[in-house]
């Protein structure tokens, strides 16, 4: 974050201090809380504050927020790591520079989100109290987006400010956690599927069950995202994860997971760090995210192959939302609108290698990098999309129950 700020503000420290002050104190407070949140303290204190306030609970207290976008030409955006086009030479985000050039709005981009759960743990207390968390856009995965929208932690988007929303791919227009996309807009999408090291396992994989082959014992990693790992296991069992399945189907999948962990077939259950195990060779195959494999192959001589399992894969998206109490919603909407221009979306896709949600990005890609146009992991074919399923939304009770069950299954 500090890099980002330093880059975009004048060099003179005094001027910089003045500007930061003028932007409001939320920045330093936010950083401070984020730091404490790493220890879980901020969240805990905040959570207590909520409960102590007469059992107000997790639903946000709505307060009228005045939009200061007209006078305050800034927008603060929290996103995941390696998720926006970045120029190593200039240490800048080219599309953000373009945005500032066109609109005069300074974009302050931070790679603050390293997990849906940890980020939620950090900011939930403030959101519940209806406080500004210092970000105008947060980017969270479908299920977590569903949770924060349901809890009233986001602001309604004014589609009049986002005319480019017409470019949103049809498949993403109607999502069950946000009908009509009133509170969220897709940033990028991707699959969770299976991948293997081509040199070490030449026979390859076709289904999730192939991962349980004895010759892969102890060389498998699976994701610690419940919806992806359990989703793939349930699909392998023939369950439609988008429709109304219940405890029996879920438990069958977690039992399978526990069995494979206890038998030593699955070496580890991991988040983003599974990539290191693939690169070090500890893992030969596993359940992975599609974009990671594209990036890893780019950096490590095309060692791995990703496929959508025959029974289908999960499709997830990360969604941009404006948190409650953000006073720069219009600026945030302008930024969303900007990234829904096909040319800009193609620039991002060329860097992040995930599925672009923007209609027309594929055509725009011809001009940027024609070799990527035919990459099915960035611009999926209709047959691939037909095999991609979205894990159904869970209500609060189900979410707690299944999360707990999954954490127990993975020994945590």
């Amino acid at each position: 974050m500090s890099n980002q700020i330093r880059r975009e503000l004048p060099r003179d420290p005094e001027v910089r201090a003045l500007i930061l002050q003028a932007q409001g104190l939320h920045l330093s407070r936010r950083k401070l809380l984020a730091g404490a949140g790493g220890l879980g303290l901020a969240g805990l204190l905040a959570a207590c504050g909520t409960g102590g306030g007469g059992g107000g609970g997790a639903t946000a207290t709505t307060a009228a927020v005045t939009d200061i976008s007209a006078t305050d030409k800034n927008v603060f955006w929290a996103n995941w790591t390696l998720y926006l086009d970045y120029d190593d030479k200039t240490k800048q985000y080219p599309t953000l520079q373009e945005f500032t050039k066109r609109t005069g709005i300074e974009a302050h981009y931070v790679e603050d989100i390293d997990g849906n759960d940890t980020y939620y743990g950090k900011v939930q207390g403030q959101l519940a109290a209806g406080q500004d968390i210092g970000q105008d856009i947060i980017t969270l995965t479908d299920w977590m987006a569903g949770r924060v929208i349901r809890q009233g932690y986001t602001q309604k988007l004014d589609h009049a400010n986002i005319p480019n929303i017409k470019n949103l791919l049809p498949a993403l227009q109607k999502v069950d956690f946000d009908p009509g996309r009133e509170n969220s807009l897709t940033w990028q999408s991707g699959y969770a599927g299976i991948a293997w090291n081509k040199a070490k396992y030449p026979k390859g994989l076709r289904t999730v069950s192939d991962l349980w082959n004895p010759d892969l014992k102890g060389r498998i990693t699976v994701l610690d995202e419940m919806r992806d790992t359990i989703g793939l296991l349930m699909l392998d069992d023939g369950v439609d994860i988008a429709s109304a399945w219940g405890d029996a189907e879920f438990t069958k999948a977690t039992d399978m997971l526990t069995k494979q962990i206890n038998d030593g077939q699955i070496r580890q259950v991991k988040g983003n760090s599974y990539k290191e195990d693939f690169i070090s060779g500890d893992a030969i195959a596993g359940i992975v995210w599609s974009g990671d494999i594209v990036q890893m192959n780019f950096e490590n001589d095309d060692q791995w192959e990703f496929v959508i399992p025959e029974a289908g894969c999960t499709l997830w998206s990360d969604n941009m939302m404006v948190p409650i109490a953000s006073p720069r919603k219009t600026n945030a909407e302008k930024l969303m609108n900007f990234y829904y221009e096909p040319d800009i979306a193609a620039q991002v896709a060329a860097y992040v290698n995930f599925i672009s949600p923007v209609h027309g990005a594929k055509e725009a890609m011809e001009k940027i990098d024609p070799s990527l146009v035919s990459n099915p992991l960035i611009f999926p074919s209709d047959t691939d999309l037909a095999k991609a399923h979205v894990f159904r939304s869970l209500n609060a009770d189900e979410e707690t129950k299944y999360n707990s069950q999954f954490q127990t299954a993975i020994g945590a």
Partner: protein
Amino acid sequence: MTATATRGQKKHATEDLRSEEEIAAEKRKGRVGLYLIIPGMAFLALFFAAPVLVLLSMSLYAKPPGAEIGEFVPALQFSNYTTVIAAYWEVFLRSFVFAFIATVAALLIGYPMAYLVAVRLRGRQLMQGILLVLLIAPFFSSFILRTQAWKQILSDEGPVVTVLRAIAILPPDGHLTATAFAVVCGLTYNFLPFMMLPIYANLDRLDTSLLEASGDLYASPIKTFFKVTLPLSMPGVFAGTLLTFIPAAGDYVNASLLGNNRDTAMIGQIIDSRFFKVVDYPGASALSFILMILILALVLIYIKRFGTKELF
């Protein structure tokens, strides 16, 4: 007993000799002392007592029926404790066993190193300086990165596993990462400096003429070590074991990076997953509180059993 009695008598005698002014000055000094500890106490109250109280009250919160995720109301739900103990007693046990093994291993490795630097190299300041810097150097880089580096070193394709497989210590499909062994090694490695530095500080003050005296009285070097050096260095050993055991018992970085999902989970990991993943704030708080009490109890027993007066 007799010593304290005489000391007491002496104190009385001197007190009688002091003038009124001296006594008043003494009292003033006492008051100044009190004022001086106020900032420290305030700091403790704010940053230790308050969070512990918050933790304690949170651990008794209840989830109202039909509540949203993360919604809890103040209550006195003591069953939070029984629930988490029933579910995770094994993990507690494992954490303490791992921490204990790591502490013993760190002692066995750390003591000779501290002895080498503090006693054998005494007078050779350059060598001492270089070795001390080497001992402290790991602190200059990130804890997580160092643990991550071990993952690479111990990886299946790495040199250690390759050699161990070649000499048949490991079976052909055996591995080191994702095992309890790797977790304990990581704990030992990461907390070794905490063991070594207090022992070094203690041995540095060891009067070597005592060792000569022991030799003059025909004690073998081994006997000298166990009868003279080791007993004299016990305060350092004591401080080192505490400084190693306490953080090791609550650690979760080593277990999550070097462990697996079957039989290496440590309590820190569970607290993390209850808090962030399951969003069970009361359960996570109860676990933290139990961990704190257990460590406190173990440390108290340890101090009572082995504690040296010089330390406390």
